[in-house]
């Protein structure tokens, strides 16, 4: 995911993304029998460009697809992976559903709040982390309590593992690599297994 304002900082093309990427938008809409179906893709495109979905993006997408603004916002707010407000470089999404909650998710949220010095829904001052909690399951109950950082999953995250992940990201570790190495646990592995190191 592009960091906030990266395109503008480059100073190359300051036109709005929908002007720059008109061809991509055309192609996306043409893929579906009804333009309405391109809604998810366009929201994703907006988020890719800006880091979140801004009010003007909602207005543009509604206009472009012939939908009401309410409809676009409704879709956007349904999915926890679309952000309506600026977010940090890493969006940490803690699963708020019951399985993760019972397996220590609630403690994990408290621990992360403490470590990051922010409350749920807020972004750290350095713009690195945003802490969010979903209403719905992130579909990783086998690895409860689960975290999702941007597009990568981290399973069975206890406070110690959370600290290690945060530290690694602060040190500039690659997210995908990190998830490969310490994020996912083998099927059948128990809590302590990931704990040994």
């Amino acid at each position: 995911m592009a960091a906030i304002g990266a395109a503008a900082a480059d100073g190359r093309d300051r036109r709005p993304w929908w002007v720059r990427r008109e061809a991509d938008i055309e192609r996306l809409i043409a893929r579906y029998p009804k333009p309405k179906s391109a809604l998810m893709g366009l929201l994703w495109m907006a988020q890719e460009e800006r880091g979140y979905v801004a009010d003007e993006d909602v207005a543009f997408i509604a206009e472009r697809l012939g939908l009401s603004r309410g409809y676009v916002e409704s879709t956007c707010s349904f999915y926890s992976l679309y952000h309506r407000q600026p977010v940090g470089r890493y969006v940490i999404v803690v699963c708020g559903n019951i399985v993760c909650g019972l397996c220590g998710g609630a403690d994990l949220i408290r621990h992360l709040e403490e470590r990051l010095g922010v409350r749920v829904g807020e972004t750290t001052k350095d713009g690195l982390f945003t802490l969010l909690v979903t209403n719905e399951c992130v579909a990783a109950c086998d690895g409860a309590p689960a975290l999702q950082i941007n597009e990568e999953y981290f399973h069975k995250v206890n406070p110690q593992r959370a600290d290690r992940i945060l530290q690694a990201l602060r040190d500039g570790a690659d997210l995908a690599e990190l998830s490969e190495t310490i994020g996912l646990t083998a099927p059948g592995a128990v809590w302590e297994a990931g704990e040994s190191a």
Partner: protein
Amino acid sequence: MLRALAKGMGTTLRMLFRKKQTLKYPFVKKERAQRFRGRHELRRYENGLEMCIGCELCQVACPAAAITVMPAQNDPENPNSPGERYAYKYEIDMLRCIFCGLCEEACPTEALHLTREFELADFTRESHIYGRDRLVNRHTSPFRVPENVYPPFHGLRPMHEDRGEETRA
């Protein structure tokens, strides 16, 4: 004849030394039963708010159609009751009332209470229609406002109030 007279006088004499049945009402008042149903009162919570929320259930429960309730929205600055609604007009026609207590039973907040006061006589019919001024108890009761049932009303809230300007693009 004399015997009968003597017997009668004897009874009278005996009764003179018995405990008296009559009371010197209104100087002395008879003890009323614990569940005696007399004049109504509308109680207040300990913080002074009226317990009545103007739901009109007493009005519909009343078999004598003696109660009239006109509800209204609370003034957020100066609420009459907890929550959004209160009775701005509450009238009971004491001449119609049969003191059955169904209104008390219907009241969801236990605001309406039938006291043991029974001296309701007056000279005009109009004066028997009791309004809020006479029904609402001047004193507070020990009841606390129940939590979370009727949260305080702060006026109509704008549709989109949570997101501040700074978070907009």
